[in-house]
């Protein structure tokens, strides 16, 4: 397989059969995120993003730039969960939820400003975000996380 250089802007889209409110709750409340986001307990408020591992260790901690429930969330990303990535510069994650009027929503996740975090870019690329998003979809549509 050819390996691509890490992309400094990454875009992921997925259709999910759920309401915008359900998706919003799933990405902003720790009880939900723990079930599909590598076990991370993520709490997002209007001005702060906090992610903790199963034993309370800090996996993410930073400002929220936009908080427009249930449509748009923009927050800082730092990879505090991995000693190799901690020193890298912060990047940015944008979540957009677009209601499709057919019982589904189009969820777009854009991870950008990764120019100062190339190792993070490589680690979240492909399977990283895809795994999280397909697991989120499975959880919302079936009530069970992807095994």
């Amino acid at each position: 397989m050819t390996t691509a250089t890490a992309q400094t802007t990454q875009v992921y889209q997925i259709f999910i059969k759920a309401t915008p409110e359900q998706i919003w709750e799933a990405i902003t409340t720790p009880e939900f995120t723990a079930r599909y986001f590598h076990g991370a307990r993520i709490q997002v408020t209007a001005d702060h993003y906090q992610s903790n591992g199963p034993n309370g260790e800090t996996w993410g901690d930073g400002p929220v730039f936009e908080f427009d429930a249930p449509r748009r969330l923009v927050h800082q990303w730092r990879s505090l969960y991995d000693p190799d990535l901690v020193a890298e510069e912060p990047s940015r994650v944008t979540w957009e939820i677009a209601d499709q009027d057919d019982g589904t929503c189009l969820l777009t996740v854009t991870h950008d400003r990764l120019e100062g975090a190339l190792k993070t870019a490589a680690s979240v690329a492909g399977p990283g975000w895809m795994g999280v998003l397909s697991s989120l979809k499975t959880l919302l549509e079936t009530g069970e996380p992807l095994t």
Partner: protein
Amino acid sequence: MVTYTRLVDDDRVFKALGDPTRRHLLDRLFERDGRTLTELESELEMTRFGVMKHLRLLEEAGLVVARRQGREKLHFLNPVPIRLIHDRWIDKFTEHRVAALADLKSELEESA
């Protein structure tokens, strides 16, 4: 109608992938993401209109996402639909075996 919608989505993905030009476009985006139509067009022996048509089919299948950035329209590879097809037939227990065979294939073919 969940199943039906899902089948239609899968059909679009398979149809989009069933064409060498469109796979080539995805390969280019895999190498470097966020390209303009002009950039993509310059590497293909095809009219601008032809490339646009292929990009539109890829967008409809959800494999390419176009985003405006300033005055430019940039195209990004969205691998999620392929991942969902992967998840449907390959679970985490068989994944290792499949990956081992895929690695073996590429190793043998590279050394050949």
